[in-house]
């Protein structure tokens, strides 16, 4: 029964994503632009609105932007969060590579590091800046959550950072990294998946990204129609879940269940 419900949810979610993507494409074509039309973003994410400023500061000051994917590993329970962090990192890197010093992507997982390396290579190629590519810009700074925090909290000094953007899976120890940045006078933007860590980061980060917005970061930054369509599907699914809960509450209250 659980498997059937799970499959039905996945199929419904997939259908919504495909439907919104097709709608976006048709809208663009009917507008005569020949390009896919961008679906509207249903909500603002104030924490992520600070990203262009953080990237701009890094580029202008000639310092590095630190993009932290967190201590999650691909293949484990943090796979989705790490992928969402990598997606956002790719979007940020594609803009930040125009600076003198390329962005630094840190992780606690070898597989994530390899993907981050790939993303940075593509970002440099896209900006015709392959000569400035630093093979050490994608780095594992610790292999456990605690060692990751310990390795990342010295970066503001050692790497002359302009700021830190943490988007991925991390425990409360990530507050140590953000505190090190704050003491160095750097901007911090942070979004994670774990609820307890979000409470810690709400206090520790200059611009916290709360709730499930860490999963929307890639779409929100890139504004690519297909990604925005998936964001719309996510919002619709949320409404369906809320509707289902409300119906369940009503049915239970009325004695129908």
């Amino acid at each position, binding site marked *: 029964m659980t498997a059937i419900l799970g499959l039905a949810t996945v199929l419904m979610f997939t259908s919504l994503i495909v439907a919104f993507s097709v709608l976006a494409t048709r809208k663009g074509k009917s507008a005569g632009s020949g390009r896919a039309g961008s679906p509207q973003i249903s909500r603002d994410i104030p924490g992520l609105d600070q990203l262009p400023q953080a990237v701009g500061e890094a580029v202008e000051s000639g310092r590095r932007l630190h993009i932290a994917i967190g201590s999650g590993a691909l293949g484990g329970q943090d796979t*989705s969060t790490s992928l969402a962090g990598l997606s956002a990192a790719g979007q940020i890197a594609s803009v930040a590579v125009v600076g003198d010093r390329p962005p630094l992507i840190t992780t606690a997982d*070898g597989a994530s590091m390899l993907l981050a390396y790939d993303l940075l290579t593509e970002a440099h190629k896209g900006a015709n800046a392959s000569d400035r590519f630093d093979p050490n810009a994608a780095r594992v700074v610790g292999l456990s959550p605690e060692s990751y925090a310990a390795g990342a909290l010295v970066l503001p000094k050692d790497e002359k950072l302009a700021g830190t953007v943490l988007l991925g899976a991390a425990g409360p120890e990530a507050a140590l990294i953000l505190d090190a940045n704050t003491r160095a006078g750097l901007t911090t933007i942070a979004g994670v998946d774990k609820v307890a860590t979000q409470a810690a980061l709400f206090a520790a980060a200059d611009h916290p990204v709360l709730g499930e917005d860490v999963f*929307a970061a890639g779409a929100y930054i890139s504004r690519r129609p297909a990604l925005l369509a998936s964001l719309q599907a996510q919002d619709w699914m949320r409404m369906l879940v809320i509707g289902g809960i409300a119906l369940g509450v009503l049915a239970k209250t009325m004695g129908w269940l």
Partner: protein
Amino acid sequence: MKVSIRFRNVLLTSIAAGAGLLTLLGYFIPVPVLIAVRMQLVSWATLLAAVAVLIGAYSLVKAHVRNFMGFKAGGAYSLIAVLGFAAMVIAGIVTPVTGIPASAFLLDHVVIAGATALSALLLFVLVIAAARVLRRPISLTSVAFLVGLVISLIGLAPTLTGLPDLGFAAAAGWLAQVPAVAGGRGLLIGISLGVIATGLRVLLAIDRPYGD
């Protein structure tokens, strides 16, 4: 040239999406063939993840060796990190051969002790961070955060005898059991949807975190 690059992209995307789809189907549809394929793909992924751990360790050691050899700031700490890594590797080799529990000793007395110290430091960092929230422009969320924090801290602190009960303990309990649980569950539903959406984006090749 352009054609070959596109073919490579299509091939990589198809392999990634196909493997993901087969694993997902094997999870939902308990047909022996699909289960066998899922198990095989997961075991390959585990093997690759193990290799990735080695690559991660190599990257870590390389960065610290470079720091130390280049006489960079904090190079001495990098030397300690490299020596610590070497000690753990040697302990891992020595333990099964000699029976001396060197790995467990290093883990208990160095790694866990260090991690505990860092966790203790976290307490002070969080208190300072909470105080820093006061400096931010006033918003509904920051006021709710600070009011909740103060009530919880007073309510959960040991009660002094002789002082009247102002209801902080009951308020802290209510905060933890009603609004915090409700909010937490709401966040968890959103996060679950985010997790599914991210997975589907990769499966449908809308998002490709493995490069273009």
